[in-house]
């Protein structure tokens, strides 16, 4: 026997289901806490490394604003996941961009709210507005779409046991030549003096170092780039820096903490966010102290730029229905809430703060065992290093892609520095011309 459903019964059933859904929806709205909003925040820092504490403190101060945090892995796939979620209509109110190219993509696609007015009108956050001098933020056509939550000074992290064993005392005003000599001294017996030497081009040329003035041409024929590659190739040849073949084969470009914390590399130039790996003695057991050294100067006594950056760019999405609440969170994040991110290695972007407390938070409970604590204060927390902030954004993402491939080729010895400079100029100039 076949059973059939009449059209009338089907329609009645559908109407019943629709009514039930409508009632459920109404019930949800009515039961909601009037005036309470929930902000959806996407960031790359694991929740337990700061965000949990930050948002708990925020909600304690602003009980009517709750935060739901989603962590994405800050790599190509993770950013793609976030971007498709942003475009796909998922409710996201606040996003953190870590690479300038990722931020630029989101700005160019019109996904982020223009914060220029809000930042300019804020007594504290005006430090990140276009009119601020010196600039500490990225601007697009003179507008600010985000504000940086962290200021990351680069330092040379060194294995104190290896330094002591070699009887090395690092001068406070050391130069690149000193760095190379010390790296050579520390090398041998399966240890490399350093992972990668300092970036001489960035140190000497500072902001927008990849563009010629005006931003209409690339700058890769500048002698500073040649000098930079020559230093690295020479150090790789003498085994005082890790050869590129080893870096690529071991994937140490993505997991640079591994060779340092396993004692294969004596000096490692990096930013404070890596403190979380040093403190994670379960994942990275090690028995040496890390001492933080200032960046060596390219020439003795000459001024130079630090190779660090302002980062963790917090932005509000244009689609967010809670613009005011999101800005309240942004303000807290960069202001009084910034301290909660310090244990995870994100140092506040705004000056001030109690240095002793910052040092205690950054070093953690085992600081005395893991760090040379004085160097943490002297060379990182009270450092007056000049951090370059790039203003030119033309074809930045394309140039990054081109240069990643070319840099690898020259460091693997597949092309000469001359070929590198010629190809880099040709390809990047074409990209700039196309984008302009």
């Amino acid at each position, binding site marked *: 026997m*076949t059973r059939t459903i009449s059209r009338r019964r089907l329609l009645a059933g559908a109407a019943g289901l629709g009514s039930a859904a409508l009632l459920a929806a109404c019930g949800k709205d009515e039961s909601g806490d009037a005036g309470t909003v929930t902000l959806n925040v996407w960031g790359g820092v694991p929740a337990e490394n700061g965000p949990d504490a930050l948002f708990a403190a925020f909600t304690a101060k602003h009980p009517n604003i709750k935060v739901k945090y989603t962590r994405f892995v800050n790599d*190509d796939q993770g950013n*793609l996941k976030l*971007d*498709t979620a*942003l*475009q796909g209509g998922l409710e996201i109110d606040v996003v953190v961009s870590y690479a300038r190219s990722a931020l630029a*993509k*989101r700005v*160019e*696609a*019109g*996904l982020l709210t223009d914060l220029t007015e809000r930042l300019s009108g804020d007594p504290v956050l005006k430090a990140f507005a276009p009119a601020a001098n010196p600039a500490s933020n990225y601007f697009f056509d003179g507008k600010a779409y985000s504000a940086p939550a962290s200021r990351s000074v680069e330092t040379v992290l060194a294995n104190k046991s290896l330094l002591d064993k070699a009887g090395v005392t690092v001068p406070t005003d050391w130069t690149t030549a000193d760095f190379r000599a010390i790296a050579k001294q520390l090398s041998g017996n399966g240890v490399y003096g350093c992972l990668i030497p300092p970036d001489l081009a960035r140190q000497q040329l500072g902001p927008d170092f990849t563009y010629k003035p005006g931003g209409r041409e690339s700058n890769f024929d500048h002698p500073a780039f040649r000098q930079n590659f020559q230093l690295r190739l020479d150090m790789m040849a003498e085994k005082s820096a890790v050869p*590129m*073949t*080893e870096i*690529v*084969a*071991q994937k140490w470009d993505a997991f640079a903490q591994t060779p340092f914390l396993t004692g294969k590399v004596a000096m490692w130039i990096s930013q404070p966010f890596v403190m979380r790996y040093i403190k994670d003695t379960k994942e990275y057991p090690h028995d040496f102290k890390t001492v933080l050294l200032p960046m060596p100067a390219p020439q003795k006594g000459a001024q130079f730029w630090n190779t660090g950056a302002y980062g963790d760019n917090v932005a509000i999405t244009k689609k967010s229905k809670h613009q005011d609440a999101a800005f309240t969170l942004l303000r807290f994040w960069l202001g009084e809430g910034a301290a909660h991110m310090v244990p995870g290695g994100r140092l506040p972007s705004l000056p001030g703060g109690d240095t002793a407390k910052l040092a205690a938070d950054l070093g953690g409970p085992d600081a005395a065992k893991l760090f040379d604590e004085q160097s943490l204060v002297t060379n990182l927390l009270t450092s007056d290093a000049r951090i370059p902030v790039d203003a030119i954004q033309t074809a930045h*993402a*394309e140039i990054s*892609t081109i240069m990643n*491939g*070319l840099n*690898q*080729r020259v460091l*693997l010895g*597949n092309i000469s520095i001359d070929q590198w400079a010629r190809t880099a100029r040709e390809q990047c100039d074409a990209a700039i011309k196309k984008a302009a």
Partner: protein
Amino acid sequence: MQTLVGSARSPVPAVVREKKRRPAGVRSWLPWVFIAPNLIGLIAFTLGPMLAGLGIAFTRWNVLSGLGGIEWVGLDNFTELFADPKFWKALGRTVFFAGLGVPLSIAFGLLLALALNRPLVGRAALRVVFFVPSMVNTVAIGMVWLLVLNPSAGLLNQALRFLGLSEPPTWLVSENWALPALVLIQVWAGMGYQAVIYLAALQELPQDLHEAAMIDGAGAWRRFRTITWPSLMPTTVFLAITSFIGTSQGFGLIAFLTGGGPGESTTVLAYYMYQSGFQAYKFGYAAAIGVVTFAAVLLLTLVLWRFQKGRGLYT
């Protein structure tokens, strides 16, 4: 009641019609219900995206700008693509990757099948062992080969040094050796599957031809060349077509092991398409690469299909 096959004017003989006639009471839409899950999946996840991809190839679309950001540009993407040296280099690498990898994996698959078709102790276990790589996750295969091909501590280079080669290739870290190394991995991973298909075909071959040839005094090589190989031609063509399609879509191993590098030495078409679409967010351009890849594979398939016609003992 309407029937699926046969009608008053049908040229199909009545007996055949009778056999295929649907049992009484079964509704005409019922077969559609059974195939619906598969059909919906095919339309939603294969045909639909293929057609959408074809359409997107004629647009400029940054996926971040949403559907409203789609701009019709006609053939601009194709014009740009054919003038793009990176595209031609990626195409060249794809031809090398597939042109070397597919024949090698078919050859090794056939050799393996011929060996496993003979009475051997533990034959069934060996068949399983050789087939296992075909079922293993790409990332797991990549992890194993990363260890094998490590330039300093890898098993392969240690063996080569032991054999007296003082400076063995740096494999995945070398611009010259990375693509051949990927071919090696591809061949290793694919030959078990090829062997299983060949084994099935070998077991279907009639033995009387071989016996007659043996009586006529034909040796093993002569019998292989004149009986086995032509008989296997349809299988070989099938494997060649499916392998070319698979290789032209080859992405997983490259994404995991080399990321298209060193430099751009392993950026094949599939990876260049990924870079254009999912890194640069140029979806129109990426779709154009996909359309050209599809056209090339279709052309190759048709050529192989034509090649097969009229060859082999049972075609």
